[in-house]
């Protein structure tokens, strides 16, 4: 019975969405306040019904209701409870339901927390948001109903893809979706602003918290996914430039650009059309991701069950939403009056460079991801694939100048900045970065020049970010108590920036160390075999058969010795899931700040081999890899701090001729 309730609730949510997509926007056009305010109730109604639908599916998974087709295909009665729950969003249909739930939650959040937003803008925004709801709920009801029943019900389910049975991955889709879908509300704000024909500093301030919330969830989602790939796939490495990774990365890059250009719109009333365009493009790239993952357009390790009919439906959605919004942009953007003027050396200009570089980087990733498709279409069916060499060669040269500018940018003031002055402050930073890099070179030796150049820039960014903070609080220039008072009075958004920029520098150490100085050995081992890697002596002791709740595993035992002293034992596993009939590798990792020693084994081909024969051991040393996760956490925390800034919570910005001075600009950037 519950699945039918869920199905019915979904239909009611659609009805709500249809009303909301028409009534508030008409109300805004006619000045009918009641119609405008109806959005509040219809958006809450949508959340109510999509939640019922979601919990109905969740209930079917938790109770292993094998009369529901989706549960049969993606669950199993023996699966641990956490993964039964995660199975709810493990399939195409279930993940789409989560998508829609988050979409409606964001709409309702704007109607509840957006008390300071003018009625007409809010009404238009919520109507646009409802258009997206209508598109996706109909998509579910017509092509991907998660509540389809099967008759006769099978005795047990087919199990969730074992690779996906992992804590990191259970959390990865929800966070990623909050990010993806969170940008929908920014998109809705942008389209509403285009319809109103008005973008100003107040608009940018209303949009900012939503952009931040979406951005930090997306950051966390991508980092979790990467972490999962690192320890679950057993390949070593945390980023593969796979199409599905790329489609989550593109909205992130674009969203980062948006986050920065919106600051200029908020503080200086400039970059308006550009900010609007970024808001549209960021969500468009999220939609593109949804399309690519679910249509079978490109080949990837991640693909959902693909279906060209679904692909066609999403392409139609894309055509309407992206095509429609960009057409609106082409029509309305030229009439928006340009804002604040600035000199070529100023914080605006710095952020402009940031935006151009991020947009170029996004373009490169987009081009590399879709190039196989373009090539196939233009050559009449010839295939090729674009791999890491292209992305590394094209992407890194864009990112390094960005990091360089990131060090300087915060020192520049709005409108017109004193570049020599800023560079003078940074002289000490530059010297320190060069000395530290030389010291690292002296210790490490070997490795490519690009590796050292990247390290130089990472140190540069980290120290420059700290320096900028010390300049703000006038550390050592004024008595310490005064500095402390200044530090306490800095707005949280400033700390957010410092933390996030420093976080990127920290993550860069991880990126560089684990890709440039990684060592890897693939060897055949027998009990007693010894391997030398990165100063460790690893002995393979033997293999043991162990049993898990829904798998059996061959567990290897490795003893790790360094400089004659016992370090640790590692237990990599090769698991077999009988129900899903598939194998996974469970790598064993010894993690330290200096680096990870990473071992995975490949299952012996036959039983005899398992009883003492040979098997393949893959062992890697990835220096500094944990810096990636720490840096990512700093990015997320920085975003969170900035989100908690009081200017976003209190002091409702008022539209008008008067230019308000924000809290943040009270502390001169000098």
């Amino acid at each position: 019975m519950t699945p039918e309730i869920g199905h019915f609730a979904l239909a009611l949510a659609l009805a709500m969405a249809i009303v909301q997509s028409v009534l508030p926007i008409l109300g805004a056009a006619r000045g009918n306040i009641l119609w405008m305010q109806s959005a509040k109730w219809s958006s809450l109604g949508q959340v109510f019904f999509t939640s019922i639908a979601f919990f109905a599916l969740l209930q079917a998974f938790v109770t292993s209701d094998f009369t529901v087709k989706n549960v049969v295909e993606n669950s199993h009665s023996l699966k641990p409870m956490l993964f039964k729950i995660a199975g709810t969003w493990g399939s195409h249909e279930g993940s789409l339901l989560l998508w829609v739930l988050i979409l409606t939650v964001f709409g309702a959040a704007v109607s509840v927390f957006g008390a300071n937003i003018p009625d007409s803008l809010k009404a238009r925004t919520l109507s646009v948001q409802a258009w997206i709801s209508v598109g996706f709920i109909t998509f579910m009801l017509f092509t991907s109903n998660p509540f389809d029943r099967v008759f006769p019900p099978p005795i047990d389910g087919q199990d969730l893809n074992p690779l996906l049975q992992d804590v990191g991955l259970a959390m990865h889709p929800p966070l990623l979706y909050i990010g993806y879908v969170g940008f929908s509300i920014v998109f809705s704000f942008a389209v509403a602003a285009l319809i109103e024909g008005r973008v100003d500093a107040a608009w940018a301030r209303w949009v900012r918290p939503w952009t931040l919330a979406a951005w930090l969830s997306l950051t966390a989602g991508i980092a979790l996914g990467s972490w999962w790939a690192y320890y679950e796939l057993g390949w070593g490495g945390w980023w593969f430039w796979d199409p599905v990774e790329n489609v989550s990365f593109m909205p992130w890059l674009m969203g980062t650009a948006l986050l920065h250009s919106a600051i200029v719109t908020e503080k200086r009333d400039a970059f308006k059309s550009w900010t609007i365009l970024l808001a549209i493009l960021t969500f468009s790239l999220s939609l593109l991701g949804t399309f690519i993952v679910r249509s079978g357009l490109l080949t990837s390790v991640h693909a959902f069950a693909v279906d060209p009919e679904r692909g066609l439906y999403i392409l139609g959605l894309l055509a309407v939403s992206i095509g429609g919004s960009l057409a609106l942009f082409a029509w309305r953007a030229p009439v928006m009056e340009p804002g604040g003027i600035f000199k070529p050396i100023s914080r605006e200009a710095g952020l402009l460079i940031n935006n151009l570089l991020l947009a170029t980087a996004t373009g490169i990733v987009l081009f590399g991801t879709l190039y196989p498709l373009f090539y196939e279409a233009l050559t009449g069916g010839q295939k090729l694939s674009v791999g890491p060499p292209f992305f590394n060669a094209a992407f890194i040269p864009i990112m390094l100048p960005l990091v360089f500018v990131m060090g300087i940018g915060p020192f520049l003031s709005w409108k017109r900045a004193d570049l020599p002055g800023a560079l003078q402050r940074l002289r000490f930073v530059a010297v320190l970065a060069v000395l530290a890099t030389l010291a690292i070179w002296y210790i490490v030796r070997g490795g490519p020049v690009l590796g050292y150049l990247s390290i130089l820039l990472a140190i540069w960014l980290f120290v420059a970010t700290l320096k900028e903070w010390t300049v703000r609080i006038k550390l050592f220039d004024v008595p310490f108590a005064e500095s402390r008072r200044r530090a306490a009075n800095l707005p949280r958004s400033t700390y957010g920036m410092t933390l996030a920029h420093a976080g990127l520098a920290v993550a860069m150490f991880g990126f560089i160390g684990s890709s440039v100085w990684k060592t890897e050995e693939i060897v055949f081992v027998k009990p007693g075999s010894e391997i030398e890697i990165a100063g460790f002596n690893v002995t393979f002791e033997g293999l043991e058969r162990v049993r898990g709740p829904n798998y059996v595993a061959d567990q290897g035992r490795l003893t790790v010795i360094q400089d004659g002293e016992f370090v640790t034992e590692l237990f990599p596993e090769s698991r077999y899931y009988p129900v899903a009939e598939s194998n996974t590798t469970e790598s064993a990792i010894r993690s330290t700040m200096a680096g990870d020693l990473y071992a995975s084994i490949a299952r012996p081909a036959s039983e005899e081999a398992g009883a003492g024969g040979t098997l393949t051991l893959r062992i890697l040393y990835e220096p500094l890899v944990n810096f990636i996760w720490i840096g990512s956490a700093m990015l997320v925390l920085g975003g969170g701090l900035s989100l908690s800034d009081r200017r976003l919570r209190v002091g409702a910005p008022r539209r008008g001729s008067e230019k308000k001075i924000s809290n943040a600009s009270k502390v001169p950037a000098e």
Partner: protein
Amino acid sequence: MTRALALIPLLIALVFGGFFLWGLDPDRDPNDIPSVLISQPAPEFNLLEVDGLATPSFSQADLVGNPGPVIVNVFASWCVPCRAEHAVLTQLVEREGQRLFGINYKDKPEDAVRWLTELGNPYEMIGADSTGRAGIEWGISGVPETFIVGSDGTVLYRYVGPVVGDDAVKKFREALDQAGAMEIEAGG
């Protein structure tokens, strides 16, 4: 901002849309992709010899520094098309003096020995890939697959499926000639 400038994003989106529409053609199989190894060095792998066979095993090092291009063939005794292909490969070795290396993919040693005894052994070296690990490194999608590796150890060509039939043999021989010609040009 001028109107023309504001139109650019829409135009780009339309071009993308056109490609996507084309890409949704149900007859298209995006998984049919040629090897990413082409023009790349042959992958690292580590193989034991086939138990009960006198032929030595080989590793990536054996593919580097040969006087001319060599053929690397992935085969298995359980693979029926391999049987048909075996005759073609034998001919390439015996009549044309090509050098052939074999990767015995997920096979039982005794079956492989029986198969080679029955049909003859044209392989100079054979590695036993009992786990399929080397197969992954080579990025094979099935058995048989055949690669041409240049004297510097670079993968020059990949053929998916059995090199059997006039067309296939012609294509493969052309690739082989081209590989040889390239080496001569390069002064090797």
